[in-house]
């Protein structure tokens, strides 16, 4: 049982749902006839609605970013190390909103929701989402909550890409952007890994072209493989080596194909757990959103030009052993912001934990992120935000 009385935890939290009944037009040309967003909030909105912070989630993330849903929860929300009283996103100062993205499988409208045209679940017919679509849906939620301008929008990985899209789409609606372990576009290698994950799912005989629910099955083997390959890209060679090395589960080699090395056991366990808690259609859709993201593409591939209308201050953070979205990708973004003469700070945090480092406690990361957020709070108090 978690100690919810811990002074650094936001404690027990309850998700909420916002329903939007107007047509929502998407980048792919299709539209949703209304939708629901599930979200959580931590902290209190001030009288002028100026202390709101939006948290954007990554590929397999969701709205539950901090605190606990139940007293018997084993783990807190996915970014609990960074959200709470006295933490970098200090809930004594900020009103934090964390949303489950459209197309997700944790409550917001997605492939598992009912398609009003057919009366059955959307399944593979659910339109493919883009980062821009998510940002627009998050803006509608902000309108609903009475927030015209965020003090900051923050996120890691795919969440960081949403943060990057925000000031491009809505320059006036945020004062600060923290883009962590992200990239301004996926590399060919990134897309290749995503394609292997998609092929793993789509070639599972129980996938049924995405209509597995109608067949009463789940493409568990495909989803498991997809997660296993994804998981490898989240860790570094060093952290895998340090955690597992060549350790065996039994005393000797048994010259077969059952689990022998600890790392195999770990990956299978991670894959199995994921294959029953995540929706395959959502996974496919999220990887496509990643692949398509490229804000410079509409500006002759000139990222500085794409960022020229932005009005916020930026913090960009990368991690030394992240090879999924390597520090070099963050530097590309920083160079474009410098070229566009935008206020930006950048730090490359020394961490052995690869891409996953953005979720984990780290002194340098906490100090830099915390200092950036405290400055925002002091600007807020001095009326200079």
């Amino acid at each position: 049982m978690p100690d919810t009385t811990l002074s650094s935890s936001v404690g027990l939290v309850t998700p909420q749902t916002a329903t939007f009944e107007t047509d929502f037009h998407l980048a792919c040309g299709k539209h949703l006839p209304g939708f629901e967003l599930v979200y959580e909030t931590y902290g209190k909105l001030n009288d002028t609605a100026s202390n709101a912070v939006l948290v954007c989630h990554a590929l397999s993330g969701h709205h539950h970013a901090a605190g606990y849903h139940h007293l018997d929860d084993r783990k807190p929300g996915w970014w609990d190390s960074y959200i709470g009283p006295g933490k970098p996103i200090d809930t004594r100062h900020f009103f934090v909103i964390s949303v489950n993205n459209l197309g997700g499988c944790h409550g917001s409208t997605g492939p598992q929701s009912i398609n009003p045209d057919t009366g059955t679940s959307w399944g593979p017919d659910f339109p493919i989402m883009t980062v821009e679509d998510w940002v627009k849906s998050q803006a509608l939620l902000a309108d609903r909550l009475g927030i015209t301008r965020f003090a900051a929008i923050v996120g890691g990985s795919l969440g960081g890409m949403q943060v990057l899209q925000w000031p491009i789409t809505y320059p006036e609606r945020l004062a600060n952007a923290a883009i962590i372990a992200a990239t301004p576009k996926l590399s060919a290698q990134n897309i290749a890994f995503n394609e292997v994950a998609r092929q793993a799912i789509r070639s599972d005989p129980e996938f049924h072209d995405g209509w597995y629910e109608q067949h009463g099955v789940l493409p568990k083997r495909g989803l498991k493989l997809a997660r296993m390959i994804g998981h490898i890209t989240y860790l570094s060679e060093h952290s895998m080596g340090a955690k597992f090395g060549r350790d065996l589960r039994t005393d000797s080699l048994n010259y077969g194909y059952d689990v022998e090395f600890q790392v195999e056991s770990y990956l299978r366990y991670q894959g199995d757990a994921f294959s029953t808690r995540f929706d395959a259609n959502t996974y496919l859709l999220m990887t496509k959103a990643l692949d398509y993201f490229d804000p410079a593409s509409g500006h002759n591939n000139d990222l500085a030009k794409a960022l020229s209308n932005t009005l916020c201050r930026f913090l960009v953070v990368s991690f030394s052993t992240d090879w999924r979205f390597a520090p070099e990708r963050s530097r590309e973004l920083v160079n474009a912001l410098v070229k566009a003469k935008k206020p930006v700070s950048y730090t490359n945090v020394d961490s052995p934990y690869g891409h996953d480092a953005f979720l984990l406690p780290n002194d340098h990361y906490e100090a830099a992120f915390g200092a950036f957020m405290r400055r925002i709070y002091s600007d807020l108090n001095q009326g200079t935000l």
Partner: protein
Amino acid sequence: MRTDLAQIMQWVPERAHVLDLGCGDGTLLAALTEHKGVQGYGLEIAPDNIATCLAKGVNVLEQDLDEGLSNIVDDAFDMVVMTQALQVLRRPDLMLDEMLRVARECIITFPNFAYWRHRLHLGMRGRMPVSKSLPHEWYDTPNIHLSTFKDFSHLCDRQGHRIIDRAVGDGDHQLHWSAQRWPNLFGQVAIFRIER
């Protein structure tokens, strides 16, 4: 404020776009922003300094100066400043050219190794000088390229850069007239303003 920083404050034009190489805790950029409406970035590698800059609202970019400035386009800035960092670089000569590629004008300050106390230290004791401006022992010093007021003037000439102005600083104290008259002997900190 350190005398070299006070001199820089006078030389940087109002509202200039400034790059500060080795910006430390952001003191100079924060002062330039407050008093001169300057906008810009500091480059720094120490995590503590980076966090201090962020807390001050100074734009700071983690970048190792020894890896050059090739990520910055030509004429991106009005002015580049570098205080007390020249002597720790692997190739100060290449950095000087780089600084004057990304801006037309730059200001550089460094400890003047020909300062009379250093000469006395080396001349009389026969040992490497250790002083307030050069506090390290020879074996643990980050200062791998110490030079003198005169040395640096020669480097600028050799690389075809024009010295617009030069001055000396004297630690935290008021400047003595002797340092203006004989900078190479009495100046503790050398301050150069250069253009390409």
